[in-house]
């Protein structure tokens, strides 16, 4: 086969990100040590914007694959890549603010920027490949980059502790994922997801069901690490607390979205076509009518554990960690009703809403905690008197996270809730409703601090321009998506044909 005949153009966004990361590292190496490295962030931002331009340019086209499905350009990947690129662009703006001259904690400033870029590269590969090995390499590129990013405050005790915990638990999760993949590979003898899907369906009829289940459960448990849901959630609070705030935002939004991308891609591609013909109740799809129960249990457990443990937290970043465990539980709910018509658009809608509200909230958290020098929730006391607009913006983010109407979070949750009811998954809908109400307690606890508690200082809080920009984009996104949810849903449904994920060009 002639390898030059492949359409390498479809990988342009990935090549741009790789090139930008390489150039940034070279500039950083040959620059005098005492220079301000924040312009590297601006260069990185330009690279991200250029990559985003090409992703949008390729959007809506027929699916293209190169190297035997090792790289695929389809609507599923495009949608996720747009989320990643938007998030990383906002994150870069936030990081330029974070790495200012007063910040003495991060010595390796150049590394900060290009490690975010390599992590982005890993996420993009995770979203647009249909080969187990390539998907796994993408996962590892993301993981290794984020391990270093978590520990980038080299002399900071908590940062070191959280990086160590992240590496160890991450390595175990990786091992479990690989072990699960090895069963699937052992049965089918291929790493191509489409070939696996065909051979797995016939292997199931031949009585290999036990090994298929083993592969499914091991992969589910291993990959649940990336999205921080039960049973692999326990690292999140410690790591989120110790990581620098922009990295925490990265872990809770982008790394999580990438985890969902790989989970949906693998499970939906591989296990979709397995049918049980021999049951007494007639033939049924194993993934959609049997295995989805276990995903439902994980979702419910995450919602309950995340939301109840968040009640007792006094550290704002730990609180956001438990909140993000619960949020991941919500996003898992549409996966339970896998074949719902609006499954893709519901998941992506929630991820878009989650992107804006969480990044915005972390921008506010970064400004406030840096100003007060503590991460205690009490650092928000009296924020309304110090900076009314910041307080109002934070209120919008928290209302959206809690799922109160006219915010993006409300509609995201509403659609998920309705789909769950529609597919007669009443108990899961009830758990979602109940835990959402519990979550009001801690979200409103922060709002109470901002408006009703006297702070230690009444001095005006100056919000630096880059952070203010991220907060403004967050507010605009949250409110606009909340006011016109149909626009977003229609765009997703009309421009991106998600079913082309299953098409083999």
């Amino acid at each position, binding site marked *: 086969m002639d*390898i*030059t005949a492949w359409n390498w153009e479809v990988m342009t966004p990935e090549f741009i990100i790789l090139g930008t990361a*390489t150039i940034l*590292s*070279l500039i950083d*190496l*040959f620059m005098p040590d005492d220079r301000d490295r924040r312009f590297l962030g601006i260069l990185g931002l330009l690279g991200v914007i250029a990559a985003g331009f090409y992703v949008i340019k390729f959007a809506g086209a027929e699916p293209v694959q190169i190297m035997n499905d090792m790289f695929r350009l389809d609507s599923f990947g495009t949608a996720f890549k747009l989320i990643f690129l938007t998030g990383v662009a906002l994150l870069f703006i936030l990081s330029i603010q974070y790495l200012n001259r007063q910040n003495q904690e991060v010595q390796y400033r150049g590394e900060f920027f290009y490690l975010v870029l390599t992590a982005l590269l890993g996420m993009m590969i995770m979203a647009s490949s249909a080969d187990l090995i390539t998907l796994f390499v993408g996962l590892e590129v993301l993981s290794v980059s984020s391990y270093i990013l978590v520990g980038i405050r080299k002399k900071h005790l908590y940062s070191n502790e959280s990086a160590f915990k992240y590496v160890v638990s991450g390595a175990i999760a990786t091992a479990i994922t690989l072990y699960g993949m090895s069963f699937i590979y*052992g049965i089918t003898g291929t790493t191509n997801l489409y070939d696996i899907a065909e051979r797995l369906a016939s292997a199931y009829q031949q*009585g*290999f069901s036990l090994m298929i289940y083993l592969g499914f459960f091991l992969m589910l448990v291993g990959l649940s690490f990336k999205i921080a849901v039960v049973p692999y959630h326990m690292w999140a609070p410690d790591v989120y607390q110790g990581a620098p705030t922009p990295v925490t935002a990265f872990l809770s939004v982008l790394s999580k979205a990438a985890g969902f991308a790989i989970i949906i891609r693998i499970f939906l591609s591989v296990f979709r076509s397995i049918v049980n013909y021999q049951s007494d109740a007639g033939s049924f799809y194993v993934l959609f009518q049997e295995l989805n129960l276990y995903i439902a249990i994980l979702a419910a457990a995450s919602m309950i554990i995340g939301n109840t443990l968040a009640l007792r937290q006094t550290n704002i970043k730990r609180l956001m960690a438990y909140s993000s465990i619960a949020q991941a539980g919500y996003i898992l709910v549409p996966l339970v009703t896998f074949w719902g018509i609006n499954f893709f658009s519901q998941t992506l809608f929630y991820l878009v809403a989650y992107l804006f509200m969480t990044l915005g909230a972390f921008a506010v958290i970064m400004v406030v905690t840096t100003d007060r020098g503590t991460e205690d929730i009490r650092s928000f006391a009296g924020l309304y008197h110090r900076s009314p607009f910041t307080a109002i913006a934070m209120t919008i983010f928290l209302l959206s996270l809690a799922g109160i109407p006219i915010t993006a979070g409300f509609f995201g949750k509403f659609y998920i809730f309705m789909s769950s009811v529609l597919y007669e998954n009443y108990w899961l809908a009830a758990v979602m409703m109940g835990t959402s109400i519990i979550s009001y307690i801690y979200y409103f606890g922060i709002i109470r601090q901002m408006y009703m508690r006297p702070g230690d200082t009444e001095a005006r809080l100056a919000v630096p321009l880059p952070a203010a920009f991220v907060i403004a984009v967050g507010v605009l996104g949250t409110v606009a998506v909340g006011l016109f949810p149909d626009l977003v849903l229609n765009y997703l449904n009309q421009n991106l044909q998600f079913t082309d994920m299953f098409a083999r060009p």
Partner: protein
Amino acid sequence: MPLYTNNYVLVTIFLFLGILLPVAALTFGRFLRPNNLYPEKQTTYESGVEPTGESWIQFNVKYYIYALLFVIFDVETIFLYPWAVAYDKLGLFALIEMLIFIVLLIIGLIYAWKKKVLEWK
């Protein structure tokens, strides 16, 4: 199912062979060699150097970074061999691909050099 479990027969044979071989070799050696022990012979073998101190000592962390660098370029040569053997069939495209691979590794080497990993102090 029978096909799959049959594979483990091979694994078991290999396991037994793996245990048997060193046991047999050492037993044969015991019968063949002259038995002439003196104290110098029983000391730890340290490449001809007089062994000193305990075996549980702290190594300089630089050993590990050095070792990592070595492993990376060792693996690089492993990738280069099959490419070089099949060079005629793969053609220009693989050459470009290999160049990208080597250039990225060289950037890694420059990184290590600039971060003073190659200096020993």
